[in-house]
């Protein structure tokens, strides 16, 4: 029997939301999760992606707001803006509203700046923030939250539970936060995280993976090399930068901890967003098996490179051998594989 659009959408959404929820729980959101991945958590792509998917889960949305009140200082809003705009991941109106709401609580300029950036790019008109399946009823007698109204999104008052914990810097998954705590929020911290958790790379590639300007990453790497913090190997006309693995993990990670696996969160969230949007754009009342299959083939073709390059181990089959409706079971199997890989542990590399 063919899986219906509704059944697939519900299952897929639930699994994506569980995955995202698990990530937030690992960095301090109050909640329980069975998920215990061993990937470095990259907060900006995660936050951007969450602003879109958590519109289907009001509880998650508000727990993330709670997390931002406690841990928002670790967010690089400049990088978040770049990621949202370049990758077209996340909901710009929701990000603008969140930034506006946070600027009331955190007087630093960064949220105010982010709020301005987002209002300039997209303004919705009186749209409910949470969908029908988000766990909140459509009708509410309470006045709408004003920060969200400014961005064209309707929602009730935010009641933070204040249950979020500070990010656990001892957890190897949170090395990016620790690096930011050591080096400051910026390119240097994130480049260091990347170098410590991988075999290194070229400036252009590192810049691309992290979502920073290539020239600025080159400058940072050159400075690190000059200071003897990283080693450089010339490979043709490019330079390969690498952290001394004996030295740095012991600084950034607790003793005897396992180094977390680097995952390209930008690629991962881009790929998932592509599928998520196509799945939610499907009109189940009008899409027959062929249309369902056709739209999902298109989505997977568009998401394929991003998913395959994100560093998580799963297989996506070549669709060419499966014509028309025959592709649908392949798609369902492949998405199942992706979600299985995302919701089971990543692999470790070596002990620090």
């Amino acid at each position, binding site marked *: 029997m063919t899986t219906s659009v509704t059944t697939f959408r519900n299952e897929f959404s639930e699994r994506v939301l569980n995955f995202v929820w698990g990530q937030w729980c690992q960095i301090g959101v109050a909640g329980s999760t069975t998920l215990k991945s061993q990937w470095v958590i990259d907060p900006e792509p995660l936050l951007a992606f969450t602003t879109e998917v958590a519109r289907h889960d009001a509880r998650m949305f508000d727990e993330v707001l709670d997390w931002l009140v406690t841990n928002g200082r670790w967010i690089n809003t400049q990088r978040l803006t770049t990621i949202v705009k370049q990758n077209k991941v996340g909901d710009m109106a929701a990000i603008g509203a969140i930034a506006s709401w946070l600027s009331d609580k955190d007087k630093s300029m960064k949220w105010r700046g982010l709020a301005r950036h987002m209002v300039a790019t997209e303004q919705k008109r009186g749209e409910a923030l949470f969908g029908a399946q988000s766990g909140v009823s459509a009708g509410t007698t309470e006045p709408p939250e004003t920060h969200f109204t400014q961005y064209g999104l309707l929602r009730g008052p935010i009641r933070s539970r204040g249950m979020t914990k500070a990010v656990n810097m001892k957890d190897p998954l949170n090395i990016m936060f620790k690096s930011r705590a050591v080096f400051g929020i910026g390119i240097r911290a994130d480049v260091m995280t990347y170098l410590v958790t991988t075999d290194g790379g070229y400036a252009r590639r590192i810049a691309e993976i992290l979502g920073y300007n290539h020239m600025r990453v080159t400058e940072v790497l050159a400075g690190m090399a000059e200071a003897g913090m990283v080693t450089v190997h010339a490979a043709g006309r490019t330079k390969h930068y690498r952290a001394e693995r004996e030295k740095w993990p012991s600084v950034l990670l607790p003793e005897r901890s396992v180094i977390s696996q680097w995952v390209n969160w930008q690629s991962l969230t881009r790929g998932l967003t592509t599928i998520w949007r196509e799945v939610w754009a499907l009109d189940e009342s*009008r899409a027959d098996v*062929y249309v369902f299959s*056709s739209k999902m083939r298109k989505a997977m073709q568009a998401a394929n490179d991003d998913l395959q390059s994100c560093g998580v181990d799963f297989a996506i089959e070549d669709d060419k051998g499966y014509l028309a409706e025959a592709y649908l079971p392949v798609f369902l199997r492949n998405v199942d594989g992706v979600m299985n890989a995302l919701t089971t542990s990543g692999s470790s590399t070596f002990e620090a």
Partner: protein
Amino acid sequence: MSFRNADDIQGALQRLGKRLLYDYAEPISLVVCGGSALNVLNIASRTTRDVDVLATVVDTANGIRLLHDLPLPKEFRDVVAEVGRDLGLEDDWLNMGPKDVLEVYGAPPGMTERWERREYGPSLTVNFVSRLDQVHLKLLAAADPKAEPRHLEDLVTRIKPTTEEIRTAVAWLLDRRTSPRFRENVRRAVEALGYDNISNDIPE
């Protein structure tokens, strides 16, 4: 990949119709000739790589208008490409390859009354040109010295036109100012079909 038979072509057009309808695309009506029309109208059965569109059709207050000088809309071509990927076909499996025919020669008289109209949902209508009009167009194609041999093959082995059909097609081809070279090319094509009685009547 190619279409093997009429079912393949019909299957592709049905899916294209579904996708256009689903995407709220502007309804479109096409005139189709070539191998796909031969297959669908059961005139001949052979593999074909694409669906040849002569023109799009617009109903006006003054009757049907054939638009051969406008490319297929971009949104339509995008859906064609997506359906092509679903079916392992080229992105342009449905194209306006033969549009120049109408530009240069116009439509055979009465073509729009003879074509066979098929609807693939509310968003896609295809008018397959009739056997007689295929003879016209195939003879024109076969008369081109640079043409692929399949046009002559279609006529000789598949369509097998009658004397009257060839005579009508020749009359259409010569019903305009023509060069001696063009007439010579038409004569050769008609001779190759074995209609010496008609070819002898074609002026030098």
